[in-house]
C-alpha cells in the first residue's frame, strides 16, 4: 500500500472536524489530542513490520465493528452538514452512506484514493487562508486576540441571533447571566433552577416563537433538532467565561493525566491497527507525513480563527459550524458561501477517500466480499441515526481496534494472536460496559471507562507476546502491506 493511501485511512472527517470544534470551544484536552492526531499515524508508518499470524476471527469481528463505528462517526459529520444546510440528519446520513457504497465501484477509484486526500487537504486549507487574509491576522495573532477577549458573547451577525440555529444533538446549557431564549421550534424545554436549595426542575412546552427567560445558574436541556434564537451581546452559554479561560482551561490539572494517557494510547493503538505498513520508501513516501501535518494544522487553524472571530460557533456542538459559518462572517455572505462550499466539498472528498481506505482495511482483515462492506455501511448508518456523540464513537472504534486488532498484528503465531485478541476484547468490553453493570462507577475509574484501550491494549499485547516469540525483538520481520 502506498503512503498516501495509508494516510487516507487516518484522515477521517470526524477527526479533523472534532479537532476544529474543540479548539474553537477551548476544550482542555485539545492540545495533546491535536498532537496525538498527527504523531499516532507517524508512529504507525514507522512501526516495525510484522508477519501475519494466520486467520483470527476475533480480530476480524472486532475490525468489522471498529470500522463501522469510525464510519458512523463520519456519518454524524454528514448529518450535521445536512442539519446546518436546512435538511434533516437523515439526508446527510443517506447521502454519505450512498457515496461510500458506490464510490469504490467506480473504475477510477484507485486513482482517486491516491491523490484525493492531498487535494482535499489543500481544498480545506484554501478557504482558511481566505479567512485569514480577510481578517488580516496570522494564526498566532488570532490565538492571542481570542485569548484577550473579556467575554465570549453573541455577535450581532451570529446566525444564533439573526435566524436561530438548530441543535444537532441533545444539549444542556448552563447560563452565567440572565438571558432570553426564543424557541423557533415547538417542543419540551427543561430548566433546572440552581438558585434555590434543593434545585428546582421545571418543564415548559413552548410553541414556535415563544420565549423563555433564564437566570444566572439555570441549566437548560434541549432536545435534538430544536431551533433556538439568542440575544446579541449576551454571553454564549456553555462557553468559557473569558478569552483567558479559553486559552488556559481552568479545569486543566494533574487529575486529567489518566484521561490524557488514555486518549493518547487510544490514538496510537488505533493508528497501529488502522494505518497499514507502506511498501513505498524514498522521496514519494515523504508526502504522507507532510499531508498529515497540513491536515492537522488546518483543523487547528479553523478552530483558532473561529474562536477569535466567532466564539458562538461552538454552541450546539455542530462539527461543521466552524467550516460553514466562519467564511460568511469573515468574507461576506456571497464570497463566504462559495468558500464554505469549497470547505464542505473538501470534507466530502475526505469522507469518500477515508471510506475507500477503510474498505481496503476491512477486505484485508475480514475478507473482500461486498456484502460485508454493505453490512458495515448499514450498521454505521444505524449507529449514526441515534445522533450519538461522534467523538465517543470514534474513541470506541479506535479503542476497539487498538485493544483487539493490534495485539493480533503484533503476535508471532496464530495461538498468540487469538489469545491476545481475546484478552483485549474481554477487558475492552468489560470496561466499556462498566457504567451499565455498576452505575456508580468510582471517579478514579472514569478514565478507564472513557478510554478502555488504556488497559485493554497493553494486556492484549502482553498476552500475545507472552505466548510467542516477541515480534520485532532484534530482527526485522515482514509486516504485510495489506494485513
Amino acid at each position, binding site marked *: 500500500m502506498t*503512503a498516501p493511501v495509508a494516510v487516507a485511512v487516518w484522515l477521517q472527517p470526524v477527526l479533523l472536524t472534532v479537532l476544529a470544534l474543540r479548539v474553537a470551544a477551548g476544550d482542555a484536552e485539545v*492540545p*495533546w489530542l*491535536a*498532537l*496525538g492526531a*498527527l*504523531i499516532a499515524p*507517524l*508512529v504507525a*508508518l*514507522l*512501526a*516495525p*513490520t510484522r508477519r501475519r499470524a494466520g486467520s483470527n476471527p476475533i480480530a476480524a469481528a472486532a475490525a468489522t465493528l471498529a470500522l463501522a463505528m469510525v464510519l458512523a462517526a463520519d456519518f454524524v459529520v454528514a448529518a450535521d452538514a445536512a442539519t446546518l444546510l436546512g435538511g434533516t440528519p437523515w439526508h446527510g446520513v443517506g447521502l454519505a452512506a450512498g457515496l461510500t457504497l458506490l464510490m469504490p465501484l467506480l473504475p477510477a477509484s484507485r486513482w482517486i484514493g491516491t491523490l484525493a486526500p492531498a487535494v482535499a487537504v489543500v481544498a480545506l486549507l484554501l478557504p482558511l487562508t481566505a479567512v485569514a487574509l480577510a481578517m488580516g491576522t496570522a494564526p*498566532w*495573532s488570532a*490565538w*492571542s486576540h481570542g*485569548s484577550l477577549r473579556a467575554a465570549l458573547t453573541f455577535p450581532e451577525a451570529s446566525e444564533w441571533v439573526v435566524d436561530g440555529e438548530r441543535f444537532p444533538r441533545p444539549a444542556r446549557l448552563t447560563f452565567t447571566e440572565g438571558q432570553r431564549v426564543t424557541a423557533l421550534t415547538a417542543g419540551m424545554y427543561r430548566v433546572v433552577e440552581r438558585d434555590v436549595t434543593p434545585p428546582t426542575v421545571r418543564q415548559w412546552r413552548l410553541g414556535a416563537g415563544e420565549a423563555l427567560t433564564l437566570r444566572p445558574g439555570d441549566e437548560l436541556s434541549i432536545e435534538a433538532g430544536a431551533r433556538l434564537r439568542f440575544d446579541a451581546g449576551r454571553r454564549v452559554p456553555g462557553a468559557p467565561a473569558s478569552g483567558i479561560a479559553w*486559552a*488556559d482551561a481552568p479545569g*486543566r*490539572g*494533574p487529575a*486529567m*493525566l489518566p484521561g*490524557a*494517557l488514555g486518549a*493518547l494510547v487510544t490514538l*496510537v493503538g488505533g493508528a497501529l491497527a488502522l494505518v497499514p505498513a*507502506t*511498501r513505498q*520508501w*524514498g*522521496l514519494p*513516501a*515523504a508526502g*504522507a*507525513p*507532510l499531508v*498529515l*501535518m497540513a491536515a*492537522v*494544522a488546518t483543523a*487547528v487553524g479553523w478552530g483558532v480563527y473561529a474562536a477569535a472571530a466567532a466564539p458562538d460557533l461552538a454552541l450546539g456542538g455542530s462539527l461543521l459550524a466552524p467550516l460553514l459559518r466562519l467564511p460568511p462572517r469573515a468574507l461576506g455572505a456571497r464570497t463566504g458561501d462559495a468558500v464554505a462550499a469549497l470547505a464542505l466539498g473538501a470534507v466530502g472528498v475526505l469522507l469518500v477517500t477515508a471510506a475507500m481506505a477503510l474498505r481496503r482495511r476491512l477486505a484485508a482483515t475480514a475478507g473482500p466480499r461486498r456484502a460485508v462492506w454493505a453490512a458495515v455501511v448499514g450498521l454505521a448508518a444505524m449507529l449514526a441515526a441515534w445522533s450519538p456523540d461522534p467523538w465517543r464513537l470514534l474513541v470506541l472504534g479506535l479503542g476497539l481496534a487498538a485493544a483487539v486488532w493490534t495485539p493480533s498484528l503484533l503476535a508471532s503465531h496464530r495461538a498468540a494472536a487469538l489469545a491476545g485478541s481475546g484478552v483485549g476484547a474481554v477487558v475492552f468490553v468489560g470496561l466499556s460496559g462498566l457504567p451499565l453493570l455498576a452505575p456508580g462507577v468510582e471517579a478514579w475509574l472514569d478514565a478507564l471507562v472513557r478510554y478502555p484501550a488504556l488497559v485493554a491494549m497493553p494486556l492484549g499485547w502482553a498476552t500475545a507476546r507472552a505466548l510467542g516469540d516477541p515480534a*520485532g525483538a532484534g*530482527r*526485522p520481520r515482514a509486516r504485510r502491506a495489506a494485513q
Partner: protein
Amino acid sequence: MSVPRRRRAAIVALLVLLAGAPLLALAPAVPGAVRVAGVSLLWWYSALVAPVLATGIAIACLVRDRE
C-alpha cells in the same frame, strides 16, 4: 545504524514528543501557560514545534529507509 534500530529510535523520539504536551499542560506550576509572543507555550509546542519535529523525523526515516 541499521534500519530497524533507526526506526525504533525514531518511534521513541515521536512518543517523547507526544508525551511533552500533557506534561507541559498538567505539570505543577503549569509551565504550558507561560506566554511567549502572546501565545501559550503549550500551544507553541503542540501546534508548531512538536509537529514540525515529528514530521521531520518521520520524513527523514521514510526517505532514508528502503526495505
